[in-house]
């Protein structure tokens, strides 16, 4: 049986667990839904700025923020992935699996495929909620598909960090806290909720510009609001850059997760 075959069994198990605990999926949707429905109304006044349309590329704040909020969910959801690993170690399931001849890597691979599915399902729900209330999808289904693809890739990259923390600390609380500590500053000091040009403080603007979250958010925002017909070279470059940044994070975080996993296996 190949690596993919074995990973599939772990993937299927993780999906079954997810379907049987739908609360886990919905729980992490609460915060982005509040942001989508209330936060966007609170900051609606941004759109009254004289040059808002030029800065944001859209007329309403909601249309600007929606891609950021969808990414916010992917980010915080990915950073909770490690909890499941801790659960498997504590319950003894991990040892049970480790005495089988199944490949070690398939355990992590199957788990991460399920993480990606979870994030995709959540993103589809959020997009479905956001479109009727004013989010824009200028590139139709194709654009949305590309957005979801990037989000899944982004989610996988960050899930690796969470798994790595879970495997190293074997402590669920640590996974939660680390996820929270990472999400908050990285989220707010990015272009997730505020356009780059509206940030006055130089240092925050600097952080925001090089924040890995911003690269990803900018890419999916362009994909959602800017029709491909009007894309220029800078837009394509931005998309490439964002994919490179996510790939970089993926290499680091998956490398770290694999190392942590090897330690557990020993």
């Amino acid at each position, binding site marked *: 049986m190949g690596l993919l075959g074995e990973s599939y069994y772990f993937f299927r198990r993780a999906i079954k667990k997810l379907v049987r*605990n739908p609360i886990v999926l919905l729980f992490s949707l609460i915060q982005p839904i509040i942001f989508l429905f209330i936060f966007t109304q609170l900051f609606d006044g941004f759109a009254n700025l004289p040059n808002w349309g030029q800065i944001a590329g859209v007329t309403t704040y909601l249309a600007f923020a929606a891609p950021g909020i969808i990414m916010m969910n992917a980010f915080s959801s990915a950073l909770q992935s490690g909890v499941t690993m801790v659960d498997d170690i504590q319950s003894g399931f991990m040892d049970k699996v480790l005495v089988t001849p199944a490949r070690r890597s398939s355990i992590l691979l199957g788990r991460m495929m399920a993480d990606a599915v979870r994030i995709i399902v959540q993103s589809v729900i959020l997009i479905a909620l956001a479109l009727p209330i004013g989010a824009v999808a200028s590139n139709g289904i194709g654009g949305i598909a590309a957005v979801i693809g990037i989000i899944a890739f982004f989610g996988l990259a960050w899930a690796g960090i969470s798994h790595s923390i879970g495997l190293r600390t074997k402590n669920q609380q640590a996974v939660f806290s680390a996820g929270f500590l990472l999400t908050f500053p990285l989220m707010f000091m990015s272009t997730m909720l505020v356009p780059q040009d509206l940030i006055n403080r130089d240092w925050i603007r600097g952080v925001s510009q090089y924040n890995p979250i911003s690269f990803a958010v900018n890419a999916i925002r362009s994909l959602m609001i800017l029709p491909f017909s009007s894309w220029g070279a800078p837009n394509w470059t931005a998309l490439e850059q964002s994919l490179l940044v996510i790939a970089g994070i993926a290499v680091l975080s998956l490398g770290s997760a694999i190392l942590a996993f090897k330690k557990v296996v020993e």
Partner: protein
Amino acid sequence: MPAIEVEALVKVYPDGTRAVDGISFGVEDGEFFGFLGPNGAGKSTTIKMLTTLLKKTSGKVAVSGHDLDKNPQSIRRAIGVQAQETGVDEDLTGRENLELMGHLYGVSGGQLKQRVEGLLKLVGLEAEADKRAGYYSGGMKKRLDLASSLVHSPRILFLDEPTTGLDPQSRAAIWTYLKDLNRKEKVTIFLTTQYMEEADRLCDRIAIIDQGKIVASGTPSQLKTEIGADVITITMPESELVDHPERREEAMRLLEAVPGVASVTAFESGVSAYVRNGGSVVPDVVRALDNAKVNLGSISLSSPSLDDVFLKHTGRRIRPEELKKPGRSMMFGRRRRR
């Protein structure tokens, strides 16, 4: 070919604890072999090393003829393992748990279906097979766990305290399955336990392990006859033992002088005397102690148990401790227990 061969096996944990301190033993094909010892004796550490879960510090191990260092993957294919923690997935049904393990062992299709049915029947979980394991009782989970370690029909089975924490009925049920597996299907079984009765009833041969070392080994009856035909157990009042510890020594001296007493060992609440012909020696023992004004709590005569064997070799009694598991929480701290 022996099923398990262990030579000078050592495990030193990073904090310096010598959990397993140079043990050597062998288990024959088809044998039911037991590791008896108290909590912390090194039983789990040994089983984890033999089942490829934990790296040994030094020593040689071969399981089913495969060298542990060179060929752990072949060992994994040959063995079934039931760990101390029941590793069943509580979100999956009993059947799904078995199927998942089957898949990981490369069993699939009709063969797997048949095997799963057979195992559900064996452990008496047919009626609950399609309920989630989270709703199972502790005994049912243990039975499911046992079944899932058998899904690939291993010839060697490792069981780490398979009945710890179970009620007497569940324990008896598991004993029956294990006996059948060993006698009828000729599966070699390596079992660890802190229960004398379990080792006594099930095992062809046992090794008594204490503080990382094997202190005695043999068939249960061999071990028991080695220490004498009968045991006289004398307890002394606690106040006496605390205030006059020298009284215990005095009692031991007196007992050793009684004709027919082979040897004497002290334990926490008194002394044990191993004798060749208990019935006739008891009056002499009582007389000797009474003459010396040693206060007695109680006196009893029994055939030696494995506990006496353990006491004889370590100076302590095995007190089985129930497992204290860390609180297992489900995803997001939800608990599901029954």
